[in-house]
C-alpha cells in the first residue's frame, strides 16, 4: 500500500465514522418514528413511555383513506356484519366506514401538479440553459441574475397579487394555475443547474454535427440532449421534489379542487381528536417515495445540491 501524508490514519477513520454514524442514527430517528407510528394502534401511539415494540396494524392506513362515524349498539346491529377486512378493523372500535376520505384525491393532485410542473420546467429550462450556455445572448449576465433573483422573494409577498391575478383569470384552485406557478418558482433552479451540465459538454460535438449538415436545432436535439440526459434527469428530480413539498402557495391558493397533500395531511383528524397513526400513515405514503428516490439516486442528487449552490 502506498503511503500518503494526506491520507487519514485508520484510527482517525474509525473515530470519524463512529461520530457520523451516531449523528445519522439520531437524525433519522424522527423519520423512523413516523413510519413506526403509522403501524401503531391509536392507543399504542400515545402510550407512555413511548413504545418501541408493538403489534403492527394497518388501522392508520385504513383511517387515512376513509371517513368513519361512531354508531350506537342498536345502529350497529341494524347495519349488519362487516363485509370486508377493513370494515371489520374499524368495527372493533364501534365505528363504521361512511365513505372515502379526500386523501387519495389530494395525493393524485400532488402527482399531477408535481409531474406537470416538472415537465414544463425541464422543457423551458433546457431550452433557456442551452441558449445561455452556447449563444451570445444580449444582456446574458443580467438575464441570468434576473432569473436567480426571482428566488429571493418570500412566497407570501407575491401571493397577494398572484391570488388576485389567478382569480381574474379563473386559475385559482386549478391544476393549470398551480402547474404554471410551480414551474415559475422552479425555473431559476432548473436553468442554473442545466446550464452547468450543458457547459460541461464539449462544443466540438455540436460543431462536428453542424459541419455534417445538421441544423442548429437538430444538433441541439440529437447531440446535446442525449449527452445532457443525466443532468436533465437529476434536475427533474429536484423540480419534482420542490413541487411535491411546497406548502405556502398550496395552502393560500388552493382549497377544494386542486389542493395538494402537504396542506391536507396536517388537517387529518379522527373521530375523537388528532388521529396520529392516520397522520403518520398519510405522511409515510407521502414521504417514503422521496426517501427511496434520494437513496437510490444519491450520486446525482448530492452532486446537484452542491453543484447548483456553488455555481450560483
Amino acid at each position, binding site marked *: 500500500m502506498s503511503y500518503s*501524508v*494526506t491520507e487519514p490514519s485508520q484510527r482517525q477513520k474509525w473515530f*470519524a*465514522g463512529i461520530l*457520523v454514524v451516531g*449523528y*445519522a442514527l439520531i*437524525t*433519522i*430517528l*424522527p423519520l423512523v*418514528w*413516523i413510519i413506526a407510528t403509522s403501524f401503531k394502534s391509536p392507543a399504542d401511539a400515545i*402510550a*407512555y*413511555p*413511548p413504545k418501541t415494540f408493538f403489534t403492527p396494524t394497518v388501522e392508520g392506513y385504513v383511517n387515512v383513506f376513509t371517513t368513519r362515524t361512531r354508531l350506537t349498539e342498536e345502529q350497529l346491529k341494524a347495519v349488519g356484519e362487516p363485509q370486508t377486512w377493513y370494515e371489520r378493523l374499524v368495527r372493533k372500535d364501534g365505528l363504521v366506514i361512511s365513505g372515502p376520505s379526500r386523501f387519495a384525491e389530494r395525493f393524485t393532485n400532488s402527482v399531477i401538479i408535481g409531474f406537470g410542473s416538472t415537465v414544463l420546467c425541464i422543457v423551458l429550462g433546457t431550452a*433557456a440553459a*442551452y441558449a445561455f450556455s452556447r*449563444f451570445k*445572448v444580449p444582456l446574458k449576465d443580467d438575464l441570468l441574475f434576473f*432569473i436567480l433573483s*426571482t428566488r429571493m*422573494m*418570500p412566497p407570501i*409577498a*407575491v401571493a*397577494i*397579487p*398572484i*391570488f388576485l391575478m389567478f382569480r381574474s383569470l379563473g386559475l385559482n384552485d386549478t391544476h393549470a394555475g398551480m402547474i404554471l406557478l410551480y*414551474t*415559475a418558482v422552479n*425555473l431559476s433552479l432548473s*436553468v442554473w443547474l442545466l446550464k452547468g451540465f450543458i457547459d460541461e459538454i464539449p462544443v466540438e460535438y455540436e460543431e462536428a454535427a453542424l459541419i455534417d*449538415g445538421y*441544423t*442548429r*436545432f437538430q444538433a441541439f436535439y440529437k447531440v446535446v440532449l442525449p449527452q445532457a440526459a443525466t443532468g436533465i434527469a437529476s434536475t427533474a428530480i429536484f423540480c419534482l421534489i420542490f413541487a*411535491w413539498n411546497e*406548502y405556502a402557495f398550496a*395552502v*393560500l391558493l388552493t382549497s377544494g379542487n386542486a389542493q395538494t397533500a*402537504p396542506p391536507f*395531511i*396536517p388537517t387529518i383528524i379522527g373521530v375523537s381528536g388528532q388521529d396520529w397513526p392516520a397522520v*403518520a400513515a398519510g405522511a409515510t405514503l407521502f*414521504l417514503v417515495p*422521496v*426517501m427511496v*428516490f*434520494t437513496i437510490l439516486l*444519491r*450520486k446525482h*442528487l*448530492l452532486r446537484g445540491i*452542491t*453543484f447548483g*449552490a*456553488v455555481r450560483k
Partner: protein
Amino acid sequence: MLKSTVDRVAGATPHALAKRVRGLSDRSLAWLFVAPSIVLLLAVNIFPLIWTVRLSFTNFRVNRPNAEVQFIGLKNYLSILSDKDIWLTMQATAHFLIWTIVLQVLIGFSLAYLINKKFRGNDLWTTIIVLPMMLSPAVVGNFWTFLYQPQIGLFNYAVGFLTGADPSSFSMIGDVSLAPWAIIIVDTWMWTPFVMLICLAGLRSIPSSIYEAAECDRASKWRQFWTITIPLVLPFLMLAVLFRGIENFKMFDLVVQLTGGGPGSITELTSINLKREAFEKWRTGYASAYAVILFVTVFGLASIYVKALNKVKQR
C-alpha cells in the same frame, strides 16, 4: 412549419450561402429558447411584484371589492415602521435566523470534516443524513408537534431519559421560553445537511498537494487546519450561509405547522405575520407594503453579503 420552409429555401440556394441560411439563425434560436422562460417569469414573478408595489400605496382590501380604492401615499409604510408588534416579529425572526445559522454552520462543517476522512460507507451515511432536507417541511413539521408532546412525545422522553427531567414537566411548543428553541431545533435538524454538503464540496475541492507541501514545511496539523482548510472552505461556507439566510428569512411552512406563531406571538416570524395581515385580516394594501419592506430587506442584506463574499473569494 417555419423550419421546413427555411430548409426549402436553403435547399434552393447555392452551397456557400446554404450554411448561413439552413435552419434558424443562432440569434433567433437563442431568443426562441430564452423567451418562454423570461415571459413566464415576468408574468408570474415580476408582474405580481410590481402589482404589490402599486397596491402598497392604497387602502385596498380584497374582502371589500366595492369599497373605493384610494391612494394614500406612504401611510402604510409609516404605520408599519412605527408598529411595535412588527418590530417584535422582526426580533423573533432575527433570533431564529442567527441561531439556526450558527448551529447549522458548526454542526454542518464538523460533519463535513468528519465525512471527508473517507471512512468506509461514508456516502451511504451522508445520504441518510441528507434525508430530512428532501422532505416536505409542512408534513414533517406537523409530525414534530407529536414528538414534542409532553409525556408521550419521543423528544420529551429522550430529553427526560438523558437529563433525568420529568418528560411531562415541559412543553417545547407550549412554553414561551422554549418555543423559539423548538423551531430552531427542527430547522437545524432539517437543514444542517445542506450546509454539510456545501462544506463537503469545499473540502473536496482543496487539492491534496497543498497539504503535502505544508507537510514538507513541517506545519502542524492544527496550523494546516487554520491556514489551509478554513480559508479555502470559507467561500463555500459563506455561500451556504447566504442560502440558509435567505430561506430562513422567508421561513413559513415549517414554523406555521410547528407552532403557528404561538404561544401568543412569540414565534410569529415575519412571513407568518404577513400571512395573517394579508389572508386573515385582509388588509391587502397594508400587507403589500409589508411585503415590499421585507423584499427590500432581503435583497439589500443579500447584496451587501454578496459583496463581502466576493472580497473573500478574491483573497
